[in-house]
């Protein structure tokens, strides 16, 4: 089928989104949840391996909506990357959510990124999900957050390079 109406195309977020987007950062910074949580942290890198310090990251976890029902934006997180490209999400893991669901769907915005990129992060000690199974095995590592000795998970995002993160096209 052909589109009846033509979509509006994308443009970069630019470097100056932070004040406009801060309300959602504030609303999701310390979410109260009735579910156990995991923390996923990492660094976002460009093609030279340099940290991207002006990215905006959003994480969406639909299974967390009930556990976070009292919050302003249940299941949603938005954070800007820090000066060293660092980011950190604290995510709900409700007991009744499928064990193989992504820890979060992640959307990436930045200066120099003319269209936002969709990806997802999975915990490395969770069962392989039907979503992850569609990713070529050689590239699945790029979507796996690795459990650390302190119980948190480490997941880096690479926009380019040998370990370029897998980005999705929803069709």
């Amino acid at each position, binding site marked *: *089928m052909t*589109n*009846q*109406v*033509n*979509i*509006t*195309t*994308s*443009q*970069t*977020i630019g*470097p*100056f*989104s*932070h*004040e*406009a*987007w801060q*309300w959602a950062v504030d*609303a999701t910074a310390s979410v109260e949840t009735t579910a156990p949580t995991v923390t996923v942290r990492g660094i976002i890198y*460009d*093609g030279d391996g*340099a940290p*991207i310090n*002006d990215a905006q990251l959003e994480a*969406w976890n*639909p*299974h967390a909506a009930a556990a976070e029902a009292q919050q*302003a*934006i249940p*299941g*949603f997180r938005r954070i800007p990357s820090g000066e060293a490209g660092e980011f950190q999400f604290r995510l709900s893991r409700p007991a009744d959510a499928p064990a193989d*669901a992504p820890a979060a*769907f992640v*959307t990436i*915005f*930045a*200066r*120099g*990124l*003319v*269209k*936002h*990129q*969709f990806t997802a992060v999975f915990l490395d000690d969770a069962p392989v999900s*039907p*979503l992850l199974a*569609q*990713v070529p095995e050689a590239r699945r590592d790029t979507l796996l957050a690795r459990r650390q000795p302190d119980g948190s998970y480490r997941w880096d995002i690479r*926009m*380019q390079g040998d370990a*370029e*993160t*897998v*980005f*999705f*096209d*929803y*069709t």
Partner: protein
Amino acid sequence: MKFDPVPSGVYPELVHPEYKSTIKRGPLQPLLRLDAALPVRDNIATPALVLPGEIDLTRPEGCAGEAIGERIVVTGRVTDEDGKPVRNSLVEVWQCNAAGRYRHKKDQHNAPLDPNFNGWGKMLTDDEGRYRFVTVRPGPYPWGNHHKAFRPAHIHFSLFGNVYAQRLVTQMYFPNDPLFDYDPIFNSVPDAAARQRLVSRFSIEETMHEHLLGYEFDIVLRGRDATPMGL
């Protein structure tokens, strides 16, 4: 929900060397086409999150006066590819002031800040998918991309839609801007018709006598047959 493929050239080129920052940031691998149910996120924001001062950017909360510049109203409809209205959906906007400067610590452009202009707002679409806000027309501003690089005047838009995959960040431009031909961000979109869909149109209907000028900017998000479907 299934999405029709986006025609070639409608999305910008992720690596567009004329826009230098894309060279090391645009993904090089083809996108992975997924066969997956998509998460719905109706009503990510409630009306309580939207404050009165956020739909009139010329009179921000906590400021005593009115923003300086050419007052404008910007309005339009948010629909999906089938022309169905996208209702109760959050729209965020941000922009520089009339002199071409953002209220942002990293904006070092030597132009004045306006104490009565913050440059951001947010709103929800109504039952017809319409949004509306009052602001001042943003100025062009220089950036370090190339010799004599000035951005065309623009307002940034962030839309959530009703389904995760409808998420869109874009920019609205003004008609007949002489800077279009020189702007690598605008021209990162190969398809000329898609570029023109980023240009608002002047509206005499929305123009208010002795008060402000009206612009209309309609936005079309992806998506058809929007049957709610979780994962």
